[in-house]
């Protein structure tokens, strides 16, 4: 199905061109660049809505496809398209970008135009990553993503930003080099740059394992999975609020997306052979990182660790499919786990964004992220406290919020793979609640004992708008996840069927 308008291209390039315009508007008239940035972000979001409304959820085939020769000599095409896996992630991106623009409105006084421009360019590039169907195009977007984020942390970041940016850059660059090698190998093997062509490419088991390993390094760093996760807390702590939001809400999802688009379909047999390895790392992420999150004294670090723990559910949900399929006691469940992982990604996009924005609200006022500097915030900021408790509860997976849906599905599915997977995954019910609520207790509740807290003012309309819209999304997805499941169902089913067939 191909629409008349090249919607995908518009959604990719509009924010990039808009971003360059904002950059050109200069820092001298900050309000002009702010409004322009907001206009671009909203326009991009509105233009991305047809991707949902015009989406045919009955097919797993790529939709809104655009294809043109780019570098014919190497069979590189400008090839875009989406399915039920990438479409929700694109909408998440365009939605969250608006919030980031609003959230940075008057907070960013230093080079506001460049700040807004970075996020808009980032948006276009990330949509490009999700929509690219040509491996070189994907790789270009993938690498291009690093630059704006590098700048966002490096220019608007905290005092230790140099260490954080270098760590962030090296980690992710280290991963992507291996991916490039794998992609080049696949090109020579197949003579094509099309990602979908790789899905059907026959590969021997040794080849598959090497390719899987190469992809794995790239995606595991992005997710991030234990033990290559330590860049994330540092990056979050130094990043400005908007940077943290994009990082947690979207960039981490690119790792999860990579597993579904590359690792699993291209190397299904290797994925099958190494599934226990990935599952083990995922469960370590859920439990180990949960305990690490418990003892953090910096709010952003705590939420960063919580992100890693929650992303463990994503990879767990994806990689249990093989064991469920081979369990004769479980009739079905593979799709449940994968869809659970997908829902978890979307939900985490909203919740982590909201949590980082909450910390941002406090940071803007007090310039501290230390839990011990707060206490009794509810006395002076009741509306803020209501939001914070709400998002904390969704972070702890309370039913009725989106945080529950993905975790619930993955726990249900992992029980079908192995009782102990579900057992370990379900520990998050306790430990996730423990680190989140303990933070809430120390920050939000209690009496005001510090003068700095006593002088706080409650959230303004702008902040209420941002947090309120996220709260609505979290509730909607928690109370009625059916529409989201519907759009991805055909694609996930197709993927699970594809995984059941060996390539050997």
């Amino acid at each position, binding site marked *: 199905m191909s629409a008349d308008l090249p919607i995908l291209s518009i959604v990719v390039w509009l924010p990039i061109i808009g971003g360059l315009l904002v950059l050109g508007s200069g820092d001298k008239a900050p309000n002009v660049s702010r409004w322009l940035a907001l206009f671009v972000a909203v326009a991009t979001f509105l233009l991305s809505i047809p991707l949902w409304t015009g989406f045919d959820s009955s097919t797993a085939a790529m939709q809104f496809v655009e294809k043109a020769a780019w570098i014919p000599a190497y069979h590189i095409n400008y090839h875009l398209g989406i399915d039920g896996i990438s479409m929700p992630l694109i909408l998440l991106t365009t939605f969250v970008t608006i919030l980031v623009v609003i959230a940075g409105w008057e907070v960013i006084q230093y080079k506001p135009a460049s700040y807004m421009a970075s996020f808009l360019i980032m948006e276009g590039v990330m949509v490009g990553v999700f929509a690219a169907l040509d491996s070189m195009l994907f790789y270009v977007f993938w690498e291009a993503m690093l630059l704006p984020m590098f700048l966002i942390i490096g220019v608007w970041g905290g005092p230790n930003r140099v260490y954080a940016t270098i760590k962030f850059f090296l980690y992710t660059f280290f991963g992507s080099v291996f991916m490039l090698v794998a992609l080049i190998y696949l090109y020579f093997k197949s003579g094509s740059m099309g990602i979908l062509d790789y899905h059907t490419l026959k590969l021997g088991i040794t080849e598959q394992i090497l390719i899987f390993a190469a992809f794995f390094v790239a995606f595991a760093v992005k997710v991030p999975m234990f033990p290559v996760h*330590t860049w994330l807390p540092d990056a979050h702590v130094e990043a400005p609020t908007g940077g943290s939001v994009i990082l947690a809400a979207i960039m981490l999802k690119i790792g999860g997306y990579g597993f579904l688009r590359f690792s699993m379909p291209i190397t299904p047999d290797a994925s099958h052979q190494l599934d226990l390895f990935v599952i083990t790392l995922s469960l370590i992420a859920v439990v180990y990182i949960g305990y690490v999150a418990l*003892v953090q004294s910096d709010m952003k670090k705590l939420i960063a660790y919580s992100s890693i723990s929650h992303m463990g559910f994503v990879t767990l949900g994806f990689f249990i499919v093989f064991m469920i399929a081979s369990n004769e006691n479980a009739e079905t469940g593979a799709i449940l786990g994968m869809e659970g992982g997908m829902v978890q990604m979307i939900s985490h996009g909203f919740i982590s964004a909201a949590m980082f924005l909450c910390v941002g609200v406090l940071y803007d006022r007090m310039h501290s992220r230390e839990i011990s500097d707060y206490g009794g915030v509810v006395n002076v900021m009741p509306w803020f406290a209501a939001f914070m408790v709400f998002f904390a509860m969704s972070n702890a997976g309370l039913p009725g919020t989106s945080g529950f849906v993905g975790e619930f599905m993955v726990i249900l599915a992992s029980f079908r793979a192995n009782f102990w997977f579900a057992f370990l995954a379900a520990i998050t019910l306790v430990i996730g609640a423990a680190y989140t609520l303990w933070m809430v207790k120390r920050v939000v509740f209690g009496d005001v004992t510090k003068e700095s807290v006593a002088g706080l003012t409650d959230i303004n309309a702008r902040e209420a708008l941002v947090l309120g819209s996220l709260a609505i999304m979290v509730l909607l997805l928690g109370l009625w996840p059916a529409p989201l499941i519907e759009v991805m169902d055909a694609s996930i089913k197709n993927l699970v069927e594809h995984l059941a067939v060996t390539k050997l």
Partner: protein
Amino acid sequence: MQAILLTLVLAPLFGAVVAGLWRNQVGRSGAHWVTIIGVGISFALSLYVLKLYVVDAQPVYNEAVYTWMVSDGLRFEIGFLIDNLTAMMMAVVTFVSLMVHIYTVGYMHDEDGYERFFSYIALFTFSMLMLVSANNFLQLFFGWEAVGLVSYLLIGFYFKKESAIFANMKAFLVNRVGDFGFILGIAAIAMYFNSLDYVEVFSKAGSLADTQIQIWGDTSWSLMTVICVLLFIGAMGKSAQMPLHIWLPDSMEGPTPISALIHAATMVTAGIFMVSRMSPLFELSETALSFVLIVGATTAFFTGLIGIVQNDIKRVVAYSTLSQLGYMIAALGASAYAAGLFHLMTHAFFKALLFLAAGSVIIGMHHDQDIRNMGGIRKYMKITWITSLLGTLALIGFPFFSGFFSKDAIIEAVGHADRFGSHYAHWLLVAGVFVTALYSFRMYFLVFHGKGPRDEHAKAHLHESPWVITVPLVLLAIPSVFIGWYTIGPMLFGDFFKGVLYVAPQNDVLAQLGEHFHGPLAFVMHGVQGLPFILAMSGLLVAFVLFLLKPKWAFDLRVRFDWLYTILDKKYWMDEIFQTVFAKGSVLLGKVLWKGGDQFLIDGVAVNGSAHSVGVLASAMRRLQNGLINTYAMAMILGLLGLVGWFVFK
């Protein structure tokens, strides 16, 4: 019908949202009116539904409202299952809730956060109604966690108090430990039944009764035992059974109306409701039922003992609640589900009454909760006094009072049960009757009789509470006294729960009892000849002697049996154990993993280590490229030698 049910469930939610989000617009009276009307509508409709089912004998209503999602062929729905059990629960919940709403107008009169409080209790009513009306495990879990959330918010209502915000977190986390088991139980059901719908699951249960599964190595476990024990762990959290009971006494940090509503009458009985609902599953596992029976009886006796040494008026009632919940759970373990539910209902009335009466006393005493400072209050608060006495008599199981019927039925049923642990349970429950009478009347005598309050100032200001407080007391006292007499026949031995609860014929102890049931009067006559009655009366008498007649004896006893007093006063050190092992242990583990794992091994050795070694290598290389001809020459010679050597010696 669906419209009625939706209105019934959503009316309190509407009130909660209005009172919560528009509290500045509606103001204090707006907040209480909108929630009271909401809950009032629910109560009226609950009565109507109860009439439809009990009087008109309507068929079971079981329909989905909407599909939450469908994934992998598994349907997740939101829907209602209405039968006699649900109808009864809805009526009890909305009645107690309405009483508490009205009472709150008086109790919270001078407090900040008045609107917030009403919003929370209405939200609680909605959540509890969702829980009891569910027709599937998803909605059950939704309600289950939602009541936990509201409980969290309400225990921490006085958010400035450190003890309150500690207690609410503790309550939530301990409940989550139970939910950990609960969700695994649901996962097991989803896997083996491939459905979350009650009716579908129950209908397939028989065919899976003999299924064995492997969890660890080659040891086989009965699937039903695994499922039921996991589900019951959830009930142990919510219904505060040992050892997960430790959150309930601390929950008394919340305002008294919610202690009555949530932590006595309704939410904590969710576990009893759930197990009864799941009776078709539990009946298939003798092992799980024994487990339930032993846990229940242990809780009933040992938490009751602690109640004897408590001095905070609310904590005495809290330990009494724990003990009574133990009785209900023990009834379930004896397959006498109807007896457990019957006690749930009578307990809801008299325990809500006792809590609200305690609240009335607390107001009278200007928020002094220590019973040692009270005394003689009967002279100043007549309605509170009389209703408290009625509630206390119901609690200890005085003949003709509602608690007499329900408690005696439980003890008889457990006595007739024939499964592992039933003797142990029976004796603990019988002994528990003495304990119940002792702590109940200790509190009663210390509060209402004897010489007046110690503090003259307090004494001067003592007066009866306003009508918004006393009217709910009276309205709750009526069923506390009479409801047992009128409902024992149909509920326990009639067909009130026919088709709702499933009891395997060989387990049906209530049917055995029913053969000797000849109306409530005969039941009372039989009861007063039994050991429990004698024990209850001796408990009352001992309390009378020790705490009213000869207080010095009580003091001497305490000195003589100091070790016993210490054990009870320290509550078997359960709090300390949990605090040290789980709370501090987790933090320690987190520190070890963080410092040792993330910071030392990963960042220190792997990441910065490799960065460092790259640095070392680079500087070594730099030293080589120092631009001096002789170094290069040396390198070339060495390289040449090496190359030649390789060719020569290969």
